[in-house]
């Protein structure tokens, strides 16, 4: 079994309450940070830990903290990104609903390190039942003296609030999130000049980190940054939550030590437990819907033939030609029966729906890709549609305000790169393709 730093207590009954959380060592990292470290020393620990952002981009967390403009004289804000909307990703939800104090403790330590006195948890609005869980946990933390004025007699004060989104994937992008938090439409801002570290929330320096990133600060302080860095492999230090879904025996959220072989993750009973119904593995999207899909041979081994590992580096080996990304840890498994075209069409529909519409390559391109994929999947496609898709995807890349455009383009390019014959089949076997779709209701009525 691999090492657990975030989920080791998750199944303890009552762990969502502060009393039980504290009985299992909760808030000891906060006490340690406040009594033994200056704010800068906390940042040093996080730098030494090698922690990288768990929201998807994998940027070094400690380094990101040092980018904050400390000299502006303006207040500094801390914002937790709990928008979790990337298809395939459901790990933050697990922490939020099961062990809210872990995030709160991590946020208080982080706020102390960066000198923030106001912090917000921006959580997707659909998590309606989690709002009361967080509100209760925040009230408990405040009553215990971990929030509010003069925390643990340190002279440091912090107010921490939960803020709801209202259904918009784009608000997971950090500048769109800040727009939304200011009460606006979630249109991403131009960078430069709107780097959150300098011109963030209310035009003040702002740190945006993912739920899991902020939670990981707790074990980093407990262990010390250097000890944390010994876990994992190379520059992929520590543990990572992976949310596994699709055609597997045991879907769910797993904490892995970075460096675990992909094959072990898929087939071991400690994790996914193998492919459902004894079927064969066909493909995997390893890091949320925005990263390139890989066929079975390339997900289990790199093009060079070495075992693929669950690390930022190993998954990326081969670039976008034969590799992919660890991303958000949304691990989607496809068995031999899965239709790549159909699945890609639903993802294209998702990106088109979620485009904020500010940039024409993204607004129009996502619409085109959805339309063409619909056509192919519904037996109305032409051979030239396949190259048309590649072309539209290419025209989005690098020409947009935020990365959503690319997030929509990459999956299309990758699916065609690795599964072109399947797209061609949809053109050469149109009536067969149509039948599959239209039979689903009758099949359903029989099985009911």
């Amino acid at each position, binding site marked *: 079994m691999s090492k657990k730093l975030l989920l080791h207590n998750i199944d303890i009954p009552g762990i969502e309450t502060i009393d039980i959380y504290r009985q299992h060592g909760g808030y000891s990292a906060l006490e340690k940070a406040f009594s033994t470290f200056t704010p800068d020393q906390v940042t040093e620990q996080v730098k030494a830990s090698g922690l990288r952002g768990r929201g998807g981009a994998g940027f070094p967390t400690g380094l990101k903290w040092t980018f904050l403009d400390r000299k502006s004289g303006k207040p500094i804000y801390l914002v937790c990104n709990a928008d979790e909307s990337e*298809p395939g990703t459901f790990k933050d*939800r697990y922490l939020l609903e099961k062990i809210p104090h872990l995030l709160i403790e991590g946020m208080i330590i982080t706020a102390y390190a960066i000198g923030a006195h106001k912090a917000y948890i921006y959580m997707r*609005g659909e998590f309606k039942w989690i709002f009361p869980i967080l509100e209760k946990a925040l009230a408990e933390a405040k009553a215990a003296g971990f929030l509010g004025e003069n925390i643990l007699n340190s002279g440091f004060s912090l107010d921490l609030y939960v803020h709801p989104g209202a259904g918009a994937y784009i608000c997971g992008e950090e500048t769109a999130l800040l727009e939304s938090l200011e009460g606006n*439409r979630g249109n991403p801002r131009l960078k430069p000049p709107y780097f959150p570290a300098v011109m963030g929330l209310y035009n003040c320096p702002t740190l945006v980190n993912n739920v899991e990133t902020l939670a990981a600060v707790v074990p980093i302080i407990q262990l010390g940054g250097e000890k944390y860095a010994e876990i994992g492999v190379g520059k992929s230090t520590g543990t990572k939550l992976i*949310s596994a879904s*699709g055609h597997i025996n045991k879907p769910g959220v797993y904490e892995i030590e970075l460096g675990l072989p992909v094959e072990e993750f898929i087939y071991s009973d400690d994790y996914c437990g193998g492919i459902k119904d004894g079927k064969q593995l066909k493909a995997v999207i390893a890091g949320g*819907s925005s990263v390139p899909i890989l066929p079975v041979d390339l997900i289990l081994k790199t093009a060079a033939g070495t075992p693929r590992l669950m690390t930022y580096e190993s998954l990326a080996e081969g670039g976008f030609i034969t590799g992919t990304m660890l991303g958000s840890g949304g691990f989607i498994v496809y068995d031999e029966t899965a239709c790549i075209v159909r699945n890609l069409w639903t993802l294209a529909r998702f990106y088109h729906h979620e485009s904020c519409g500010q940039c024409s390559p993204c607004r129009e391109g996502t619409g085109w890709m959805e339309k063409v994929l619909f056509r192919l999947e519904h037996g109305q496609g032409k051979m030239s549609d396949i190259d048309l898709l590649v072309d539209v995807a290419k025209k989005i890349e690098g020409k947009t305000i935020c990365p959503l455009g690319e997030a929509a383009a990459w999956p299309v390019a990758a699916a065609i790169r690795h599964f072109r014959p399947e797209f061609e089949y949809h053109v050469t076997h149109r009536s067969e393709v149509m039948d599959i779709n239209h039979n689903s209701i009758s099949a359903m009525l029989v099985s*009911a």
Partner: protein
Amino acid sequence: MNWTHETRSKSMNNHIHISTSTSAKSEFSPATMALVNEIIIRYPEGKHKSALIPLLHLAQNEFGGWLSPESMDYVASILKIAPVEVYEVATFYSMFNLQPVGKYMLEVCQTGPCGLNGADKIINYLKHKLNIDIGETSADGLFTLKTVECLASCGTAPMMQVGEHYYENLTPSSIDHLLKQWSNK
């Protein structure tokens, strides 16, 4: 079958789908008003517009599950902002309903990972059972069927959200059971 739907910007620029119907009630209860005041002070002075989305959720909740023009104007008046600033925001976010909806809104996830485990079948089954299409409300006003994008519940697919709850690992029989329960309430 129709593939089209609009991106957020188009729904804003071309035509705002704001209803001309009115809602029965459009003032917060004293308890909600107390909550409103608590929410507003979470944001720095002068930044009270940040409270807009939280207040729209409260309004939708309290005024029949959707946002009528009066409800939005009312929220604008509380925050002392222009009504158009509220419309602009309400039209962007998919959780805000700008038309009346049924008592139970069935929001079924249709995105890829759920698709792998039978989301389409669940959607078709609901259409058949309720005898309505996506976006429609049943004749008795009880159910509205809506498809939504990934709700971070992909490991327990197929799934839907109804009100505060996620209903996961759906099967035809679990749906039958839920519909019966809601119909008899």
